[in-house]
């Protein structure tokens, strides 16, 4: 029975982390049709900013340790906003009419540039800012201890998922965005400022990426290459769920997270395989992903 609890809770925790990592990627693709290879770099920048600021806070200040959580979120918002504005205004807005494949190459180049920029800015030494992770203690569930920070991430992830869904489905901005998603040309014809929508969406996407990095930073050693590692997983999740679909990203993350947890507990030898096994299986049955729409080609 304890194994059952463990599989479920571990699966939920991992799925919530996967969703955090993948949310920005799917938002950007959904609206802008950009398969953003640089998303991993936004995650890394968020993690580095948060780790360095929290490290500085705990080493140089004797303040309330719980304020470090605000610092984590604040760093992510600032980093996401700055990086998003600079990249969107400085590069991407000149590229919007380009082919989707070319955009992959452009964002891949961006990934390489940002990887080196991060290294130049933060160095290659790992950052180990454990305080926010250790501060919340642990809870015993079914005879097994779990870090409260990890459990809290499940709630944060649910709030972000719900927030994205509400904005897209229950607000005026969401309606306009959905119009852009469904038919960009008609949206322009109806007077929608698509450029503004694109800029806003990209900034939200980069901020979600940076937030994922910042919230992960206290539980890992932040070191060069972390962005490249997560991008593969993020792609697996959004491809399973259907590119551009928030619901798809939630279900994709749950599917991948639960399957991986099941494998770790019952058949650890195939743990590496299962994530991509699930992806292959889904794509074999539904090439557009679980929630992806089949688009009619315009001639």
């Amino acid at each position, binding site marked *: 029975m*304890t*194994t059952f609890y*463990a*599989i479920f*809770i*571990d*699966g939920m*925790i*991992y799925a919530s*982390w996967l969703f955090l990592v993948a949310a920005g990627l799917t938002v950007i693709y959904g609206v802008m049709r950009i398969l953003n290879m640089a998303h991993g770099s936004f995650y890394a920048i968020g993690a580095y900013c948060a780790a360095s600021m929290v490290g500085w806070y705990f080493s140089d200040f004797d303040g309330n340790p719980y304020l470090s959580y605000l610092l984590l979120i604040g760093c992510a918002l600032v980093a996401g906003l700055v990086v998003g504005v600079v990249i969107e205004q400085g590069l991407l807005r000149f590229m919007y009419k380009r082919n989707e494949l070319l955009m992959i190459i452009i964002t891949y180049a961006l990934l390489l540039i940002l990887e080196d920029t991060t*290294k130049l800015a933060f160095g*290659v*030494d*790992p950052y*180990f800012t*454990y305080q926010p*992770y*250790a501060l919340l203690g*642990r809870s015993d569930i079914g005879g*097994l*201890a*779990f*870090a409260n*920070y*990890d459990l809290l991430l499940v709630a944060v992830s649910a709030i972000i998922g719900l927030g994205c869904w509400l904005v897209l489905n229950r607000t005026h901005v969401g309606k306009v965005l959905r119009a852009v998603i469904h038919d960009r040309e008609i949206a322009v014809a109806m007077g929608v400022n698509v450029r503004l929508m694109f800029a806003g969406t990209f900034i939200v996407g980069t901020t979600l990426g940076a937030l994922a990095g910042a919230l*992960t930073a206290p*539980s*890992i*050693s*932040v*070191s*060069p*290459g*972390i962005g490249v*590692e997560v991008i593969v997983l993020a792609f697996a999740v959004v491809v399973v769920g259907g590119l551009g679909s928030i619901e798809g990203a939630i279900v994709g993350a749950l599917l991948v997270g639960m399957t*991986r*947890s099941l494998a*770790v*507990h019952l058949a*650890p*030898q195939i*743990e*590496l395989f299962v994530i991509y096994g699930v992806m292959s299986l889904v794509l074999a049955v539904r090439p557009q992903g679980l929630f992806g729409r089949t688009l009619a080609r315009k001639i």
Partner: protein
Amino acid sequence: MKNIVQKTLAVMAAAGTLAAMPVHAAENGKFRVGVVTFLSGAAAGPFGVPSINGAKVLVDALNQGKVPAPYNVKGINGLEIETVVIDENGGATKQVEEFRNLAERHKVDAVVGYISSGDCLAISPVAEELGVPTVFFDCGTSRLFEENKTPRYVFRTGLDAAIDNIAAARYLVDSGRKVEAIAGIQQNYAWGQDSWGDFTAAIKQLKPGVKVTTEQFPKIFQGQYGAEISALALSNPDVIHSSFWGGDMEALVLQGNARGLFDKRSAILTCGESALDRFKGQASNGLIVGGRGPFGAFAPKNTLSDWFHAAYMAKNEIEPTYPAYKMVQAILGLKAAAEKAAAGKAGTVPGKDALVGAFSNLTFESVSGSVNMSRAKGHQALQGIAYGEYHYDAKTKKASLKNIKAYAGECVTPPDGTTAGEWIKAGFPGAKCGG
């Protein structure tokens, strides 16, 4: 007219090529050494940076003649040491290209480097082909001299990884801990697989009947180990073994400690020393750590190690970890061999055949004590290894090692001509472990 232009361009191109080619080190009165280590990527922080910092401290001091005896001759044999530093990141194919560049364009007299076992295995045949004296300072693969059975130009001054795991098994048994059920978590590539294979084989020899409760092989650099920690805890082993390194190791310790994984059982980290000052109390007191030999916090007290520790601290303001010591050991070995090969002719670069001849079976003093190049036909160092318990003092905010136990090289190293696997399977015949 066309011919004149073509000839002029050809001469200019040739002149340009010559100008771009550095003269051979011997011609500019320096001893040129290629130094290869990770300057980027995930291995840079825990291994690459300490090792290159160690190299810089030592080379600067050697060039100024400030290293204690027997290394008080300036540079190498009186020649200033000139280093060509290469980033090891990028994979084995890139490293082979870089190695050829070092040999053919930079015309180095020797190469010291390589942390990745894959890189060592790729470089070894190229070094033999090009005839470049090459000293591997850190990579631990047992296959190095199993594949290169007749080494001439390749040396390794660091220890074979099998030794880490044989000694880990001995430490657990000797310390009297309960070792009836074991579990492992390793990075899923050759290093992790081999380490676990050697450890389980060794512990089963030393403690027959030991049961493996779970074996976890997460992807390298995964970072999130929640499910693995649950699986380890639920399998309820007496001992958890891990060969994790770098950020993966720190994340495992942090996440495991937060969930009490190490509270009621022993855990052993074969590379734990490299993060001794980084755990900051997030590791449980009593966690067993190794330093892949008598390096870092396990280094013996002697004139050289005291000097190096002080010099490193003065320059970097951080404790030197085991990769720094291992890099220094490799350069000291090269210096000792080159000066022996020069046979008193100061200010000359010895021929490479003389150098490798002098290096084979050499015994030299190092920051880790005496190093005896007595394995793999005189090309592999034989040294002892130690394990100890991590303890953190919250008042001083300092970590220290307790209950250190050292094992002689002859106790944990297979004899020449026998693979580690065969030796363990046969029950460590000929092992000299003393009282």
